[in-house]
């Protein structure tokens, strides 16, 4: 029920914002929704699966570059570019996951960081596609030749649709047998193996799926900014995505999405006030880490529950 209310509110945002003469916020909210997709995909492997991936930005970057490279070679149709982006990012996730899932704990964090940095430096070497300077997309992806996301609102509703679909998919997967295996693998991988589950194969599938969804977010980001740059894949971005998930509440899918909305909106608001907005952002992040034990979502739902009682 709560999810429907959130969806309704987000759907009503553009007319309301336009009415309040704050139309540009629709652009910011679109970007927030794109990062919400990535944050929810990351939460599935990090929160539910216990796999702390420190190279998730690489999946977004590969998705964005898939759209960019397709565009440079004359392919502008989203029906081709978006699946290509998800395939490329999901494929990279599966490939690197094979090696990464052999490790545990902090070593998994570091090996995913290593693969993310390798992807970053590889892309900066692609001088054919702008290398370090990135590449401008002169038109956004079309749908069967029709410019479906050219305007501000159409792009927003496309991002909202993708975010809602991602949420629904991951929620269903979480409640399925597959979801319970991923959950169990987080709590006690040894026990799961003793029960007869091939833990690594299940985790690899989850890792590849979340990579593919990261690719979708990347494809949307490329269209939102109409620009593709290696900066999308820097380790800072992977760090920011983890902050979004943990800030929102790593234990809940909706929490991670909410965390992304909060961080993107906060950056926009704080940057408007002071040039040194990062100090305020740092203090907020620190306060949540110290006092809101299970993230904003956890704390809010806790508070709501206490209110209702």
């Amino acid at each position: 029920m709560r999810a429907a209310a959130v969806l309704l509110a987000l759907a009503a945002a553009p007319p309301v914002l336009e009415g309040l003469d704050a139309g540009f916020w629709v652009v910011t909210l679109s970007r927030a929704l794109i990062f919400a997709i990535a944050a929810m995909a990351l939460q599935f492997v990090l929160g539910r699966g216990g796999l702390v991936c420190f190279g998730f930005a690489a999946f977004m970057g590969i998705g964005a570059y898939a759209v960019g490279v397709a565009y440079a070679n004359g392919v502008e149709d989203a029906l081709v570019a978006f699946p290509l982006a998800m395939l490329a990012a999901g494929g990279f996730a599966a490939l690197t996951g094979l090696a990464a899932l052999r490790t545990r704990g902090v070593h998994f964090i570091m090996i995913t960081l290593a693969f993310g940095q390798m992807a970053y430096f590889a892309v900066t070497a692609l001088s054919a596609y702008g290398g370090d300077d990135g590449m401008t997309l002169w038109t956004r992806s079309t749908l069967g030749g029709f410019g479906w996301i050219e305007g501000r609102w159409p792009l927003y509703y496309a991002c909202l649709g993708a975010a809602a679909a991602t949420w629904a998919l991951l929620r269903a997967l979480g409640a399925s047998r597959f979801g319970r295996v991923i959950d169990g693998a987080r709590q006690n991988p040894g026990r799961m193996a003793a029960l007869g589950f091939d833990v690594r194969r299940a985790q690899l599938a989850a890792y590849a799926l979340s990579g593919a969804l990261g690719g979708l977010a990347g494809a949307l980001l490329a269209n939102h900014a109409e620009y593709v740059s290696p900066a999308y894949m820097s380790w800072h971005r992977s760090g920011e995505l983890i902050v979004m998930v943990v800030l929102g509440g790593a234990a809940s899918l909706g929490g991670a999405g909410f965390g992304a909305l909060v961080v993107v909106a906060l950056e926009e608001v704080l940057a408007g006030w002071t040039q040194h907005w990062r100090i305020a952002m740092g203090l907020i992040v620190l306060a949540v880490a110290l006092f809101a034990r299970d993230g904003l979502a956890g704390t809010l739902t806790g508070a709501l529950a206490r209110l209702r009682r």
Partner: protein
Amino acid sequence: MTAMKSLALAAGLCAATAAQAETLDIGMLLTLSGPPAALGQHIRNGFELALAEKGGKLGGFDVNLIVVDDELKPDVAVGKAKALVERDGADIVVGTVFSNVMMAVFKPVIEAGVVLVSPNAGPAPLAGKGCHPHYFNTAWQNDSNHEVLGQHATNQGYKRIILIAPNYQAGKDAMAGVKRYFNGEVVDEIFTQLGQLDFSAELARIAAAKPDAVYAFMPGGMGVNLVRQYDQAGVGLPFLSAFTVDETTLPATKDAALGLYGGTQWTRDLDNPINAAFVKGYEAAYGAAPSLYASQGYDTALILDAALTAAGGAEADALSAALKAVAIPTTRGDFRFGANNFPVQDYYLAQAVKEGDAYVMRKVATIFEDHADAYAAACKM
């Protein structure tokens, strides 16, 4: 410290606009953080100095200057450029410092029907086939200052030189510029990572190759480190450069930079009344020697003032036509745009010297006169 000074100046600026003339929103998108932040700061200081001297008005309009830091991150700059034109309703956008950021923000600004005036970055694509009637550059095309050093190396009769530059658009333009006018052999082209600060490995390669001279393009903090480590390593070969040895890096490099050469379209000792007033005004306002970037910020304000007066408004086509016809005296002498909206001007060889306790660049020779960039022909406007 510099932040406090410019705030004081801005405050003074607001008080000056007594009469309620129509307000003009000018968005200024510069790199104000990270190693090369000094470049953005100098351009901003120069522009604000001219604005203050004109009582906060350009072409009779009250100016609301919206300064935004692009953090030398193209993807961040795209978002901020959109915010400037779509949310803040900027009538004119002045920016950017770096070419990679310029390539990213060009589309959102131009497609919003707003005139884009670059006080610095002049990447080859926007001077050639990618030129646009609403895009102007008041500084130079990236290659030009490097061409000065290529011509100088030829004049000096050097046979073998080594080039070193960061691995991005302006870095490639720099090497292309030197090679266009240098008739000797380029022994090695070393590309470093943007933002790299330790050049020990690269300096060893240079020393081993024993060239006649070294050409370097390393703006901002990267240049500070390269010059200091070049001096510490005692390489001792002639050091030619553009955008590396100038008044933004001299305060940090000090003696290590003495005797090193730079290619530029402006030096403090250019003999014209506007330049003399500019240098004195800048040092009084900011307590530091102005650089070519500061002069570019100052000239941009002068040029906009003339064009806005002629056009009577910031409407893109009218303002563009007025800008194209601008012919006014500036800090570097008489200024005019070429066919591709890039300046046609003289270029000089300058050398770092110490006067009293100040480190400044002095003009050594005039290399080019009325020099147009190499891409103007490819621009079909």
